[in-house]
């Protein structure tokens, strides 16, 4: 977590070998060929362990974006490397606004000397500092288009951004006339981005649910062992009631995350409703559980001797990626027809 790259290459290799990195990549391309349900389950573990890795960036967002864009040639070239973990890919979707919407796209693509060139400043790029391959969504004369560029290409400059959650890696990436290949999308580019982000949100929801569950577990355990006033602190109703409320939060988060995963897996009509519900319910549940968990531990949780704060930091970060809880509440209501 305190290294520059923010992940452990050995661990990354084993995750790849176990098939975790290529979870959603087809078997024909070296992946595990499973879907959102399995991904969500893995992400619950990721959240519990506060795993630091480019899994979300490369194995989820980039892989799903490539699949959804449906350019066979590009997919066949990139997905096997992504699944094998030998190449880390990430998507450049937004700029300084941090709005993961069509309006938030800041890069532009133009034809120069017969080839495409990208310009503009992207931000909030997950593991941008570790990426080999950049998938870039850009505005062009022909509307929104997707491109692939090497992170080592001329004109790309990558700046690691200082994140409050040290388990997270974000970068700002500037493009100055960068040569790139256009990805031939089989349908709407934004629709593909939306699919990739929905899978990312389900993954995050799993991570949040798993993180909340873990905090609740170690907090309840502590309440059973810590003695003040000659009794376990869990015998005080103040603590007991907080714990009960957190169980309600946590169980609801797990239900929401799993429900969204199965709706996504079935590609069901109300998938957007389920995803947006999970997005804000799990974000809020994780933040609340991590925050109350600190209060329930007392002074020990105000220090680095105890991991509770790491969970709060992760919870606060997860709550902002791919849209804020407020944004997802609005989307949820719209999906409900209001």
């Amino acid at each position: 977590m305190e290294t520059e790259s923010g992940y452990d290459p050995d661990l990354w290799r084993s995750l790849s070998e176990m098939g975790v990195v290529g979870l959603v990549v087809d078997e024909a391309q070296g992946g595990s060929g499973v879907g959102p349900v399995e991904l969500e389950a893995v992400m619950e573990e990721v959240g519990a362990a506060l795993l630091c890795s480019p899994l979300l960036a490369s194995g989820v967002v980039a892989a799903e974006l490539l699949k959804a864009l449906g350019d066979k040639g590009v997919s066949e070239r990139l997905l096997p490397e992504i699944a094998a973990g030998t190449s880390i890919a990430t998507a450049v979707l937004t700029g300084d606004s941090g709005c993961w919407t069509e309006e938030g796209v800041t890069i532009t693509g133009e034809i120069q000397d017969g080839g495409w060139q990208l310009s503009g400043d992207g931000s909030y790029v997950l593991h941008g500092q570790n990426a080999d391959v950049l998938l870039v969504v850009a505005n062009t004369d022909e509307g929104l288009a997707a491109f692939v560029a090497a992170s080592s290409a001329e004109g790309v400059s990558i700046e690691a951004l200082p994140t409050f959650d040290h388990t997270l890696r974000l970068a700002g990436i500037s493009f100055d006339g960068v040569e790139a290949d256009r990805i031939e999308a089989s349908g709407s580019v934004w629709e593909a981005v939306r699919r990739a982000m929905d899978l990312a949100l389900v993954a995050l929801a799993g991570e949040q649910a798993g993180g909340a569950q873990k905090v609740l577990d170690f907090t309840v355990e502590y309440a059973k062992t810590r003695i003040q006033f000659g009794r376990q602190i869990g015998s005080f109703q103040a603590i007991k009631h907080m714990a009960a409320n957190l169980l309600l939060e946590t169980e609801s988060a797990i239900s929401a995350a799993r429900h969204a995963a199965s709706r996504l897996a079935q590609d069901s009509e109300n998938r957007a409703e389920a995803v947006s519900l999970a997005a804000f319910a799990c974000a809020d549940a994780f933040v609340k559980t991590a925050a109350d968990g600190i209060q329930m531990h007392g002074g020990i949780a105000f220090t680095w001797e105890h991991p509770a704060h790491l969970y709060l930091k992760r919870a606060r970060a997860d709550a902002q990626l791919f849209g804020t809880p407020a944004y997802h509440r609005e989307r949820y209501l719209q999906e409900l027809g209001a």
Partner: protein
Amino acid sequence: MSSDNQSSNDVLREEVRQWLAENWRPEIARTLSQEQYGWETSETRKAWLANVVESRWAVPRWPQQWYGRDLSDEQGKIVEREFAAVRAPGAGQDRINLWANTLLAGGSQALKEKLLAPLLKSEVNMCLLYSEPGAGSDLAGIRTRADRQGDHYVINGQKVWTSGAAVADYGMLIARTDWDVPKHRGISFFFCPMKQPGIEVRPLRQITDESHFNEVFITDVIVPVENLLGELNTGWQVLNMALAYERSSMGESARGPRSGVAESRNEEPLVALAREARVLAEPKLRQDIAQAISYKRLNALNSARAKADLEQGTSSSIMSLGKLAMSRILHEEARVRTEILGAQSLFEGEHYPRAEDANFLTLNAYFTSIGGGTDQIQRNIIGERVLGLPKEPEVDKTVPFRDVRTS
């Protein structure tokens, strides 16, 4: 109010104004206003405070014998208001200086002569040696011991979460002096000299990445008998008085942002922040901002009413609400700041001062909701001591301390 009173108040007010006009020079004001928050006191500040104390403006309600003027509470207020009007620090210490008030109330003649003035002048640094690994909320469960040997006590034990221990000259220490009586009755309260070999201070890294608080290991530390406050084994009473001071000051103010980047002075910080982030028009945020500001305003109104009651001689139950209210204020303000910033709150560091502030304040809110007695303990105190609700049974209250159960 009689006109006599009125005119003597006018005379007093005039005297303070005059003194400030002569002494509170612009260069001092400038230096002090630019000081950063920290545990150590600058030379300029020390010199200023010394002047305030020697001129008897620091503790005017205290007796003449101890740097005071025997003024009434109302007159004390007049002095404070004049100081506040020109933003000069140092007045009102007879209300807010935890260390000096505790010493005045419980200290021996010799200790008061030695330390009262230095405390008022911030020449000595202090810390609170209360909490232990096994005794936080349940402070009466402490196991640090003090044993009398001739003209001093010998202290052994361990303290934790001791803010400022690394730079402290003295610590207000509670230690067990009788193990055969129930836990509240065998505790004594000391001013413990910190600069001696048996004190080992180990900093703890806080979640805010600062290291203001520490573990303190105490081995055969010597404390002169004259450093005992109150009678032997009545430390619990002294402690409760000191805690009341600490909690009431925690209910009145708290540490603000630390990025050092100025926030608007003309506007509520949350309003200014939302304006800057161009989200001030959003209805949900407007509601949240209004609510957060209202918590702060209502606490200030409560506190003003409590003080007015106090001046009329009726004690007010509102006083004990301040710390709990402040906890809610701080947590809610930090939450709304985060909400205003959205994705920008992911960052930290000097290039992202607004995010830095939102994140820092989110974490530092626990300083108030855990430090000085947790919110849960405050609610118990309010329920039991203010509302008179039945006390929770305390299983170990009447047992000799030797037989008490611990973690």
